[in-house]
């Protein structure tokens, strides 16, 4: 394995680590305080299967393998809104395991097809028929049903409850950021989903103070407003399902009107050349507000995914994007 020449024996060697971190790219034009607050985007879509979820998926799969839970042809079953499933499916295929992805119906078509292409079987659930206390999440419950009723056929890593999801970020994401910023990071901006990232980074940065600073690195969670349509993310009110959520580790929660996720993602593409997905757009908007307020610092935004899987969501929120895509419907030049 040679990270300098980028020549590899297997795609597994591309998985991120302190030696092979996902890239950190400086955001300048969209930074309200470019001279006093360095703002960096950590491009998780540069991971081999295309999102931040590569980290958790690898740790989850490796744990199942090590515990012998995938012996005797047993496959992996997991509820997923897409990215964990895509990473898991690709990794499972590579390692010779079957994979069943239980997917909420609201997941964009692009992601469902990607799961199929990566080798997963799909079970689509019409989720959130009427969100209510105690009902849990249809896809989580159905995956649990498979793992319980057909335990000879399926094992469930359960990203919502499995510490391996947290460990992935303690071992990889945290040390990467620390090394890439030379220990100068003061703010980390991220979103909440399974909470593996936030809890893992929270534990890694708990005792760390940026160089020359008295206060520890601040973890800022950016969440979409309720009723949101930002795939992969959860508002705190929806976090009951994640057993990995530990509010003590979060220094601040910034809530952003979810429509802005789409607008900001387009700005990132058009201004910074970063083809960011809606979750990255949302995190950027949260970071922008904090930079404007704090004015001095060094911030890292975890950009979970790029734009490619979400074009249909973009059109839903920014219908003007679809103008001119049919012959003869273009505007005036």
């Amino acid at each position: 394995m040679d990270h300098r020449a980028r020549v590899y024996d297997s795609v597994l060697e591309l998985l991120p680590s302190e030696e092979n971190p996902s890239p950190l790219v400086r955001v300048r034009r969209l930074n309200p305080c470019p001279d006093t607050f360095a703002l960096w985007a950590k491009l998780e879509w540069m991971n081999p299967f295309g999102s931040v979820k590569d980290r958790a998926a690898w740790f989850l799969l490796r744990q199942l393998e090590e515990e012998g839970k995938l012996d005797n042809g047993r496959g992996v079953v997991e509820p997923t809104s897409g990215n964990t499933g895509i990473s898991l499916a690709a990794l499972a295929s590579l390692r010779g395991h079957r994979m069943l992805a239980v997917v909420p119906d609201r997941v964009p078509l692009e992601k469902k097809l990607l799961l199929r292409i990566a080798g997963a079987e799909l079970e689509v659930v019409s989720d959130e028929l009427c969100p209510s206390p105690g009902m849990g999440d249809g896809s989580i419950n159905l995956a649990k049903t498979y793992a319980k009723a057909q335990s000879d056929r399926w094992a469930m890593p359960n990203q919502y409850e499995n510490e391996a999801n947290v460990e992935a970020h303690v071992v990889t994401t945290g040390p990467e950021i620390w090394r890439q910023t030379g220990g100068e990071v003061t703010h980390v901006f991220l979103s909440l989903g399974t909470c593996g990232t936030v809890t893992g980074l929270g534990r890694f940065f708990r005792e760390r103070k940026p160089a020359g600073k008295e206060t520890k690195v601040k973890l800022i969670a950016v969440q979409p407003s309720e009723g949101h349509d930002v795939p992969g993310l959860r508002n705190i009110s929806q976090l009951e399902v994640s057993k990995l959520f530990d509010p003590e580790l979060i220094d601040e929660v910034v809530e952003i009107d979810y429509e802005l996720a789409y607008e900001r993602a387009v700005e990132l593409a058009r201004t910074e050349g970063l083809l960011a997905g809606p979750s990255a757009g949302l995190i950027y908007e949260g970071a922008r507000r904090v930079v404007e307020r704090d004015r001095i610092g060094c911030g890292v935004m975890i950009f979970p995914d790029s734009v490619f899987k979400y074009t249909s969501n973009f059109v839903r929120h920014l219908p003007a994007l679809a103008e001119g895509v049919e012959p003869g419907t273009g505007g005036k030049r």
Partner: protein
Amino acid sequence: MTATDGYAHPEVLVSTDWVKEHLGEPGIELVEIDVDTQAYAAGHVPGAVGWNWQSQLQDQRRRDILSKEEFERLASESGLSPDDTVILYGDNNNWFAAYGFWLFKIYGHPDVRLMDGGRVKWLNEDDKELTPEPPEVERTDYVARGEHPELRAHLADVFAVLERRDHNLVDVRSPDEFTGKIIAPPGLPETAQRAGHIPGATNVPWSTAVAPDATFKPADELRKIYVDGAGVDAGRPTIAYCRIGERSSHTWFVLKYLLGLENVRNYDGSWTEYGNLIGVPIER
């Protein structure tokens, strides 16, 4: 103290532990009722037959509940007898199981009960088994023990209530549906032309009756919600409705069996029927 203390009819609820203890006993039959049978097929309580609410519990031609003959045929094919203790459970906090309960009562089944907490509670308890194996069913000849149309409200009953204003009308949909902000919950078909609620209705979302572990809340809490909070007058007859009649059967169960109100009917025509009518009054 047990959780069922204080309910008017505690005998219609069984716990998951009770079901586990009585699995396989003759005379005790389990039916899982879901909006569809995807989850049932993946795994269910051993011995339970699975009913699909959409395709098996409604008349497939006109909009109606199963006729008595159709219900008898379904019960016979499922190996049920009128003497059985039938335990119902299902997804979505027993919405559809509650609808099934209502249907069993309409056709006079003496001993039908809900498994408190539904399939989600069973699923999340480590000592409870699930199986994908369909049960062995021996066909029976189920003959309904009667008919109880008085458990059901029709449109004419709702009109009569509008005139006399002598009923509690409980709209169990979400506040956004009740106030007319939306016609149907996000992602569900808008089956009515207009949004709002039936004049005089009070809004108590069905989920208010459910605890975080998916079981029904204790009787004193339910009384506070419906009687003290929403002003449901226990001395008056009550009609519950929602969008298509399934969420309201859940509330119908709460009001009639847990709180013991005398005269409670489920208006299964619900907003899908009322919200499409020409010239009727609507409140928002």
